[in-house]
């Protein structure tokens, strides 16, 4: 990938931070936006703004057309069909939508929801609420010492509770350990044992890094945010298998989703409009669609390869720093592998392919993550520190807080080198 050309597409990357050129490594929190996306949004407001549907005037027609076009582009990007997308603000809202509609309508005492110990709070708390309200049980797949969802444990759980499990909700790509879920294996496993279970995947970290193949995978719910895939903040989606969406009552009702309304009753439009109550974020949808076009232009295979190479390079560089202990997969993956140091030695192996993508979080011996991040910021390197919304995982692993560098299409190996130089400063300040 031509990263110089890509960097030039992102105006914010030419900013100076503390008199140093910005190295943005907080992409797991949100990615920056290319000028193509920014332009699509301002062009919408400057040229086409009008409320969608129901308007018999030119602007409303244009706006409606752009909105419908955006839906087609986004579902195409996700490998789904147009009537399988519900617009939401972000991944959190997408998961809450499932919790508040499908789960409330279908779960009862005796049913079981399976999540994992590494879930982002947005794929955990909605299930806590649902479990409390419906009486369903909530149980968790173990995480391996190197930060992956333990699929053997998942299989045992599915086999043991094949009639009870009604939902399996997992993160496709961990925002903390960077561990990738073997989606096809999970789908196969769930379908084999728990025939009545739905599968929900949190695709927040995945969508901007790997190809999404919703229909081919055959999952039921796929939640994602636009802002983590170079689109605007405030727009995202829930992709839902058609028959599931048809059978579920919408959580929001009102304008835009009705056919006929009487004072005491109403009939609803078919899907997907049935899920579009209220004036939608048309500019957001247009911006997100432009982000999909941008990523397709780069090619998702190329994007994944780029992210993988950067992740591999970062893991390699960070292992040179004795004070650093990385969390998550860092070596050839075998279940319950030897101690971390052993894995790092293995990573000298040419064929080293860590089962991780996009994020490298770590502990710095004797220095708190916030202090590490602060010193890096002074060097113009933006990373994130804290618990990354995975408190239970941090508690289980005994990490007070971790520092996380996460990559995007515009990052380069020299950005990773700047990170490493910044970490040398940490050593200077704290020794």
């Amino acid at each position: 990938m031509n990263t110089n050309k890509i960097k030039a597409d992102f105006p914010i990357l030419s900013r100076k931070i503390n008199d140093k050129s910005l190295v943005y490594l907080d992409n797991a929190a949100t990615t920056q936006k290319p000028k193509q996306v920014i332009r699509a949004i301002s062009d919408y407001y400057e040229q086409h703004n009008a409320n969608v549907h129901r308007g018999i005037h030119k602007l409303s027609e244009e706006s409606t057309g752009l909105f419908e076009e955006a839906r087609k582009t986004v579902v195409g990007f996700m490998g789904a069909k147009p009537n399988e997308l519900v617009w939401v603000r972000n991944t959190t809202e997408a998961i809450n939508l499932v919790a508040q509609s499908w789960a409330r309508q279908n779960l009862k005492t005796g049913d079981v929801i399976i999540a994992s110990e590494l879930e982002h709070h947005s794929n955990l708390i909605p299930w806590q609420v649902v479990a409390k309200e419906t009486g369903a049980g909530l149980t968790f797949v173990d995480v391996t010492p190197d930060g992956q969802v333990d699929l053997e444990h998942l299989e045992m759980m599915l086999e043991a509770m094949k009639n009870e499990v009604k939902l399996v909700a997992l993160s496709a790509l961990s925002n903390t350990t960077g561990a990738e879920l073997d989606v096809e294996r999970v789908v196969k496993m769930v379908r084999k044992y728990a025939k009545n279970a739905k599968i929900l995947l949190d695709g927040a970290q995945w969508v901007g890094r790997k190809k999404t193949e919703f229909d081919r995978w055959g999952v039921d719910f796929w939640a994602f945010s636009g802002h983590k895939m170079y689109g605007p903040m405030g727009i995202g989606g829930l992709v839902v298998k058609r028959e599931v969406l048809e059978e579920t009552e919408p959580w929001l009702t009102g304008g835009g989703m009705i056919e006929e309304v009487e004072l005491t009753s109403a009939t609803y439009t078919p899907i997907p409009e049935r899920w579009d109550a209220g004036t939608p974020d048309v500019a957001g949808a247009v911006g997100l669609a432009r982000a999909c076009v941008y990523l397709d232009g780069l090619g998702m295979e190329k994007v994944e390869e780029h992210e993988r190479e950067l992740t591999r390079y970062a893991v390699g560089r960070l292992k040179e720093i004795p004070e650093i202990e990385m969390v998550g997969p860092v070596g050839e993956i075998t279940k319950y592998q030897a101690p971390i140091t052993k894995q790092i030695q293995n990573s000298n192996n040419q064929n080293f392919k860590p089962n991780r993508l996009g994020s490298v979080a770590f502990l710095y011996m004797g220095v708190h993550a916030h202090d590490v991040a602060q010193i890096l910021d002074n060097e113009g390197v933006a990373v994130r520190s804290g618990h990354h919304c995975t408190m239970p995982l941090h508690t289980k692993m005994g990490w007070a807080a971790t520092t996380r560098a996460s990559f995007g299409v515009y990052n380069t190996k020299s950005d990773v080198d700047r990170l490493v130089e910044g970490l040398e400063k940490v050593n200077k300040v704290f020794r």
Partner: protein
Amino acid sequence: MDDIYRDEVMEHYKNPRNFGSLEGADVVVEESNASCGDEVRVSLKLGNNQSPSIKHQVIKDIKFQGQGCAVSMAFTSLLIERVKEEGWGVEELKDKSEEDLVKLVGGDGVSPARQKCLRMGIKALRKAVAKISSNF
């Protein structure tokens, strides 16, 4: 950043003053920032004074224990050292606002993102003083 990691602060981080627990403490309070995993425990001991009036209560000693980032630990150490230097009694300390204590430790320049770290010790000390005051 120079405000946060100035030499004085780093010195306090590496060699915290008044660190430890206080035998026969009159009050022990805890404060934490769950989202950072930072926590601090402040113990406070009054002078040997039988007066029922808060006016006469002197602070004999303050100590702290805890773990956390450099900012939270160093500024707690600085805070306790300075409060002791001032020689304030309970009533005087009670009259100090959180902002007064931020000024006392020279924390005005600390960035918004680190305010929680800066203020953890301050909050703990104020909590301890409030708890003691409620006895009078």
